[in-house]
């Protein structure tokens, strides 16, 4: 079956899942015993008639199931409703915050994946050597660390005690963000050839990306190690050696390619962990992304935003896993797309 056919089929299969997600988010956000209308209307000093009107506008006077269909209908028109915390459409807010989060996530992956794989290989081929034990310990500590605590400690160490890195934010104070092309400050500032902005953005990325990526690194390292160990025991590795292939080539050509297969799957799953981690990381590093937005929304019971965020995350996550499956098929000829 052709790749694009497969993709289309997968995307179609997504629809029920997404609908399910909307049902969850909707129910979740409508059992809240809060009065969004009054919150919209500005709290204690709000005028009753204003509140009534807003309640009508938000269909809060309708039965729940009816509200759900209003909600679905809005979604179809890509309208996630209005965020009262930010007093603007959720879509707009998410649109603004998505690139920031995406930049952060990608950055942390870029740092975590290669290091993780490399570490995995090294500790696999030097099994039970000192370096192996060390990287194993790093790995296990890595995915046992409470990410928010790690963030605080890093701030304490590198932004307060030894202030070598910025404490928070995406750019240093007063620096105007580069003209919006991709929303990735790094890329935009490069494209617009703005060195200062680039360095600032890069420096601001270091701590959050590290915090976010650390656990991912740990898990990938662990996965690569174990699968590498397994692969290096396989018959075809012996064959390769019998062919007179150099050890180096045996590891990187014959071993790694096979060992990567499970790693890829894990990476896909990790994407979800990264998105979750973003909520905590962004809150602490005051990173203007979806995660911080979501945290504020949850605390402020801005349920349109919460729903919007959850939905976006779900979609991104599911698509990430689709991509992983494609990669999977690309790496392993035995995998046939659509074969279940």
């Amino acid at each position: 079956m052709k790749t694009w056919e497969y993709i289309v089929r997968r995307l179609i299969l997504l629809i029920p899942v997404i609908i399910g997600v909307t049902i969850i988010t909707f129910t979740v956000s409508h059992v809240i015993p809060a009065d969004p209308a009054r919150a919209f209307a500005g709290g204690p000093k709000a005028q009753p008639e204003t509140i009534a009107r807003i309640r009508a506008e938000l269909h809060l006077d309708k039965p729940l199931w009816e509200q759900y269909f209003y909600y679905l209908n809005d979604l179809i028109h890509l309208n996630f409703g209005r965020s009262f915390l930010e007093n603007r459409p959720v879509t707009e807010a998410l649109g603004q915050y998505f690139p920031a989060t995406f930049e952060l996530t990608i950055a942390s992956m870029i740092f975590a994946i290669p290091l993780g794989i490399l570490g995995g290989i090294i500790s696999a081929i030097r099994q039970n050597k000192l370096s192996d034990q060390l990287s194993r310990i790093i790995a296990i500590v890595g995915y046992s660390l409470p990410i928010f605590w790690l963030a605080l400690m890093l701030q304490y160490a590198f932004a307060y005690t030894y202030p070598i890195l910025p404490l928070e934010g995406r750019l240093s104070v007063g620096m105007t963000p580069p003209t919006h092309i991709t929303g990735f400050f790094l890329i935009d500032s490069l494209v617009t050839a703005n060195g200062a902005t680039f360095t600032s953005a890069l420096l601001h990325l270091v701590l959050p990306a590290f915090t976010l990526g650390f656990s991912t690194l740990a898990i990938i390292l662990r996965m690569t190690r174990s699968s590498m160990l397994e692969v290096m025991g396989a018959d075809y590795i012996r064959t390769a050696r019998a062919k007179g292939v150099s050890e180096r080539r045996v590891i990187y050509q014959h071993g790694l390619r096979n060992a990567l297969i499970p790693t890829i799957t894990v990476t896909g799953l990790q994407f979800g962990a990264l998105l979750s981690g973003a909520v905590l990381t962004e809150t602490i590093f005051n990173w203007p992304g979806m995660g911080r937005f979501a945290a504020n929304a949850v605390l402020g019971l801005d349920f349109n935003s919460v729903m919007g965020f959850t939905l976006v995350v779900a979609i991104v996550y599911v698509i990430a896993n689709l991509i992983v499956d494609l990669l999977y098929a690309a790496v392993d000829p035995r995998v046939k797309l659509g074969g279940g």
Partner: protein
Amino acid sequence: MEPTPSTTDQPLLSIRDLKTYFYTYEGVVKALEATSFDIWKAETFGLIGETGCGKSVTALSTMRLIPQPPGKIMSGQILFNGVDLLKEPETTLQALRGCAISMIFQEPMTALNPVYTIGHQIAEVILLHQSFPEIPQKKTYNPITRRRIRRAREKRAFEKAIESLDMVKISDPKKVAYQYPHELSGGMRQRAMIAMMLSCTPDLLIADEPTTALDVTVQAQILDLMKDLQQRKGTAIWLITHNLGVIAEMCDRVGVMYAGYIVEIGNTDKIFANPDHPYTRGLLRSIPRLTEDRRRLEIIPGSVPNLITPPEGCRFHPRCPYASAVCSTTAPPLIEVEPDHCVACYNYATAKFSVVGAQEEHDRPSA
């Protein structure tokens, strides 16, 4: 590297007192104690014995492919064309493997790398061990030129790979070359394997139970294939199997192995004609013959000893009906009983003498 030309009086491969241990958590497995034998140019040598008696270990030791840890070659010599492989650096062995000495394995299913095409895997050997005079070999650091040369060599290697596939009588080798292992049948894979390992015309081909995993008809084909390749290329074949039939039809000489020892070695016909070691005899009896009518097959009483705590002296003595005091104290040396036929047993003579008795005993109707 081209194999060094050998004189006729010098064996191609000569293994001397090879001692290989495995350090497992249960204890030290003394897989090989003092294994010695020779293989001569262009001959077919068969190594036979029950599973777990150390056949494969010997082969892997020869290739220096014993996984270590847990394995370790303790002592001994492996002289290949007079060169002691155990003393050579890894690089030399890499040059030898797949070129002068190749090995094909028991499991064609898992022995090929699932993520590369057959052609690619064969081409790899060729690229490693062959030079391409037709391609200009100028030393340049211009990445583009280098790349172009590499591409050319790869292309050529792939063609050669297809040729060697053709050589092992694979119909439509082009197609197969572009296929992945999982798309081929067991027999086809084994052919591909052989093609891979013979593509550099090695002096010695170690075939570790090449046919056990295949069904009978395919077995025959593979064996024939190996035979005529040997005739065409003059490769010495070291055939490891527990199948006496295969030995009988393939091998010029045969070594019988028991619990890490060569217990009997020599010309195949001679050994099959009059086996001297009780164990060999047991083995030979345990195959059905159509010529004589037997009510039931011989079986050797007892089972292969645990190699962590092997019996003292002759490792066969606990199972041996003729064991004498000496057997349980010191391991018997190989004694030449006739030209090109040695046996490691103290009382092979008595054993031989009492065969008939044993025979009758067995054949007496039990009623």
